């Protein structure tokens, strides 16, 4: 029933590891996003895919690689995790041919030790 879902909800890992976060939406939207929310609650867009094609790629280290196998899924893979990667990562989706209201997932809290 969940519109935008993310797994896992919590992720605790050591520096240097590689991890992935998955996102799925069942709203039939054609655009998906990844946001990073830091400890001060500041929300910043990282990537956006429209119909499996990358359309927004903000200044993000290339250790972060998004992958969209189909328009309902947008996964985020992070290589060589660093302490500064600790944050809450939110996935969102919207319909591009409209007014771009975005629907957010529940977030994944990543803690790098």
């Amino acid at each position, binding site marked *: 029933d969940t519109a935008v879902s993310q797994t896992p909800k919590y992720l605790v890992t050591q520096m240097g590891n590689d991890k992935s976060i998955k996102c799925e939406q069942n709203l039939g939207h*054609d655009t998906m996003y990844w946001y990073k929310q830091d400890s001060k609650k500041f929300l910043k867009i990282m990537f956006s895919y429209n119909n499996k094609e990358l359309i927004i790629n903000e200044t993000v280290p290339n250790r972060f690689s998004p992958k969209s196998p189909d328009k309902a899924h947008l996964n985020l893979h992070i290589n060589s995790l660093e302490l500064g990667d600790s944050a809450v990562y939110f996935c969102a989706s919207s319909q*591009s041919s409209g007014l771009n*209201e975005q629907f957010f997932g529940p977030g994944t809290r990543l803690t790098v030790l």
Partner: protein
Amino acid sequence: AQSVSQHNHHVILSEAASLELGCNYSYGGTVNLFWYVQYPGQHLQLLLKYFSGDPLVKGIKGFEAEFIKSKFSFNLRKPSVQWSDTAEYFCAVNGRRSSASKIIFGSGTRLSIRP
């Protein structure tokens, strides 16, 4: 440069007080405007949105916002807050065009309501 400013970082009110949270934006062209709310430990949810028409927009839970184009503002209001309104509030803007465009979020305003 595109930006959204929320000048109040933390607002503390007593229950039944009136609320106004400021939001100013800088964005070329016609815009869509949003207010999102994030309750403690939860994800962002849309409170209300402005696309066109009546500049006074009513949202869920008794919230409203007014778009004043000349002031580039979209302030959020509620006449009487409740303890359950304790949350982080984000103002956001994006450009109104047919293809997807990124939403720019403000830095958020933390609202604490004293019971």
